[in-house]
């Protein structure tokens, strides 16, 4: 069964705006990863944050992790229409456990 929950389930913004997605998980983790999925097929790894890290940046992506609250957030700055996709967090203890995802729509 799926472990985490993403919030919101769907997010619609305009190009140039920032998009923030939140994720909660239930058990201890070694790291937490964020993935992107286009059109319901292959997942692409975006960023990984280790359990002893609190924040990580990669280009326009910023991820935070709060292990005391068992939550993480993904911020995409200056969004583009090409960022339209579903975004999933995946907590990792031994394997990836995915949440249900946030569907992001970025309108030109």
């Amino acid at each position, binding site marked *: 069964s*799926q472990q985490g929950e993403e919030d919101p389930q769907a997010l619609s913004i305009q190009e140039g705006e920032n998009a923030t997605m939140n994720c909660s998980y239930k058990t201890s983790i070694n*790291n937490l990863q964020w993935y992107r999925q286009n059109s319901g*097929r292959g997942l*692409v790894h975006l960023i990984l944050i280790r359990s002893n890290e609190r924040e990580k940046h990669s280009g326009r992506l910023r991820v935070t992790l709060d292990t005391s609250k068992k939550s993480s957030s993904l911020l995409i700055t200056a969004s583009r229409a090409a960022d339209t996709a579903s975004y*999933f967090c995946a907590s990792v203890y031994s*394997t*990836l456990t*995915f949440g249900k995802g946030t569907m992001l729509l970025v309108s030109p």
Partner: protein
Amino acid sequence: GAGVSQTPSNKVTEKGKYVELRCDPISGHTALYWYRQSLGQGPEFLIYFQGTGAADDSGLPNDRFFAVRPEGSVSTLKIQRTERGDSAVYLCASSLTLGDPYGYTFGSGTRLTVV
């Protein structure tokens, strides 16, 4: 190969039939994972292999599902007596090691439709 290859990309089968889904991981990746994704949901873990052995098959829904990786490379997911509820996208991923800090590489999936 450069990425994880899954074949076929689409499979339509009749209820009750047997199907095999193939995954060809990145060369040298010892860990291989199978996930199933239903419409509007996140991927659900099925099984993972470390080398040739199934290290964790706790996600397989029932005994109609079975997976093998006989030589530690290509893996086949086998579903017997398919049911309409088995319809989903079956995703395969591989990583250099279990818990690879660089993340997993996913294939494009096999969309299975049971009619």
